[in-house]
């Protein structure tokens, strides 16, 4: 009897508690089968990459052990090498897994840092306006007028970055989109009544930005995050493919492709898998991005 009452109370609490926009959006996302499949594939590949040492240990292979004598260009399903070996006799599967670590890390980290910078600068410039706004806008227009990949190859060729500095270079070129987005949204929020009343009761600028603006631009940026990770991964792949990204022996999916043309006839499978993995990951991120956009669309109905 008592427990039933308690249950009823919990249920009532549940009903009474207002659901935030984010809760509703996540609920919508959970019902979107395509997005859930994309999340599943992404999780699987991420976990497989993180578990690379365990998996390769169990298979008894190593990504950097070269074998120049017999086992170069082994085909798929060879003895001891599930996906064959490359031009130096290194295990292809092991390299793919370790490459996944680097490629995914660069993708996630760059997009995340660009998001942090974009949200911070976007809110600051949109909120304060004035000279900071003008300067940041000038920088953004300038960077957007230079074809990104052209600038990227120049920077990479001049400074020869490793995985970590490559992230900074990519962030340097990609923070502009989020900044513009957040700035625009902040501009429109700034003149709303609740901001004016917050001012009236003496809230500080910092508090207004933190409590009233940040949560409102948050969903907007989360939606773009998935897609941005995809874009960054394509940039990294193109750069590494050109031989200007992360340098071997550290493998990334992009730089595994850069030499594959030379043995395109001997071992076409070496070309297939890295490209396929990039495509699948980016595809999942784009699908997830679309799913998030639909889920967070305030005009959507349940």
């Amino acid at each position, binding site marked *: 009897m008592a427990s039933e009452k308690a249950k009823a109370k919990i249920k009532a609490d549940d009903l009474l508690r207002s659901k935030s926009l984010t809760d509703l959006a996540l609920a919508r996302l959970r019902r979107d089968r395509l997005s859930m499949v994309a999340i599943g594939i992404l999780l699987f590949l991420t976990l497989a990459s993180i578990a690379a040492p365990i998996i390769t240990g169990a298979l008894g292979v190593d990504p950097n052990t070269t074998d120049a004598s017999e086992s170069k260009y082994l085909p798929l399903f060879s003895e001891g090498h599930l996906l064959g070996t490359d031009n130096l006799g290194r295990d292809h599967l092991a390299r793919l897994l370790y490459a996944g670590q680097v490629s995914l890390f660069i993708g996630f980290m760059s997009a995340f840092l660009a998001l942090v910078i974009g949200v911070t600068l976007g809110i600051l410039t949109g909120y304060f306006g004035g000279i900071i706004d003008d300067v940041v806008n000038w*920088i953004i227009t300038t960077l957007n007028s*230079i074809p990104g990949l052209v600038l990227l190859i*120049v920077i990479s060729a001049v400074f020869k970055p490793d995985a970590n500095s490559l992230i900074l270079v990519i962030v340097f070129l990609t923070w502009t989109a989020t900044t513009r987005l957040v700035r625009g949204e902040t501009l429109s929020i700034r003149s709303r009544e609740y901001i004016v009343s917050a001012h009236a009761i003496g809230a500080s600028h910092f508090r207004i930005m933190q409590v009233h603006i940040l949560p409102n631009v948050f969903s907007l940026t989360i939606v773009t995050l998935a897609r941005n990770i995809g874009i960054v991964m394509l940039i990294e792949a*193109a750069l590494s493919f*050109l031989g200007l990204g992360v340098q071997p022996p550290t493998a990334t999916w992009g730089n595994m492709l850069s030499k*594959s*043309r030379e043995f395109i006839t001997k071992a076409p499978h070496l070309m297939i898998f890295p490209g396929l993995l990039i495509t699948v990951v980016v595809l999942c*991120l*784009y699908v997830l991005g679309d799913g998030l956009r639909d889920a967070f669309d305030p005009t959507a109905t349940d």
Partner: protein
Amino acid sequence: MIKYIIRRLVQSIPTLFGITFLSYLLLWLAPGSVVERLYLAPNIKAETRARLAAQLGIDDPFHIQYLRWLTGDDWLRWDTDGDGIADQSFGLLAPLDEDGDGVPEPPGDNYGILRGDFGRSFVKKQPVTEVFIANLPATLELGIAAVLTSLAIGIPVGVISAVTKGRLFDNVARVMAVIFDAIPNFWLGYILLYVFGVLLDIVPLGGRCVPNLYGVCPSLFQRLIYLPLPTIVFAAGFVALFSRYVRTSTLEVLSQDYIRTARAKGLSPRVVNFRHAMRNAMIPVATLLGPIITNVWAGAIVIETVFAWPGVGRIAFTSAIQQDYPVVMGIVILASIATILGFLLSDILYVLIDPRIRLD
């Protein structure tokens, strides 16, 4: 209209300034001395190096060098009596005898990038503008072929998608668009090269032509076989972009009152969709011109490398690898100017073809 164009051109001056500043800053920050790169002698003596540095003016502070790069040095030190030795100079900015060896320096011969002089290539020893212009036709050929192809495919696909919204064609087209967005273009290029060049052996494995005896490419029609693969790879991303854009704008147009009127007066769906809807849905496509030009430069680097296509993208890439800074900086600036003009042109086009838009 003319007022608007002038205002936009004036607005792009600070942007252009930012671009030159950024490129020069990159060169300034680059490791390794320009003297070594110019004279290809890493082990020259310290005093020789200092003298060369003084002669070349690369021991000057950043802002002086930047200014000289922008405006040239012919007005800083010049020759009035025609003996090839400088006898006039612009005060302390450029002393006649810069390196202090008692002999006046030769007169300045650089016009600066503001007057279109980007200097000479370290590697090819040619003026940068010549290098750029020599490689431009190949890139234009590929870029125009790709844009035309993608317009020819993307626009109809977008319109049909919008008309059949939610049905099979629409769904397939949208899935294809996402897939082609996600495929790295260089990888698509490799796959197509492998299938059509290696397995089927029906197209050449890259290149633009077999040059004739004079090292010149024959006319376009005699080398058409080189064009399809790079064009397809280049166009793949654009088709996705165009079809998505056209689909959205067509859907918007289809919900307008005049479309309902057209339907109500009994016009066939074909006439309504293609004459009334498609024409108006095309207007926003004009705004894509700017972004497309940016994408052509970026795509050119990757695709020209995959297909060994001798264009600006390839020269930009090889110059970056060889650290041939004048060429790299020249290409960055010229490509950026093209991008800025592309954005301006697309805005003007947009106003011109849509009478509903007022500038003020």
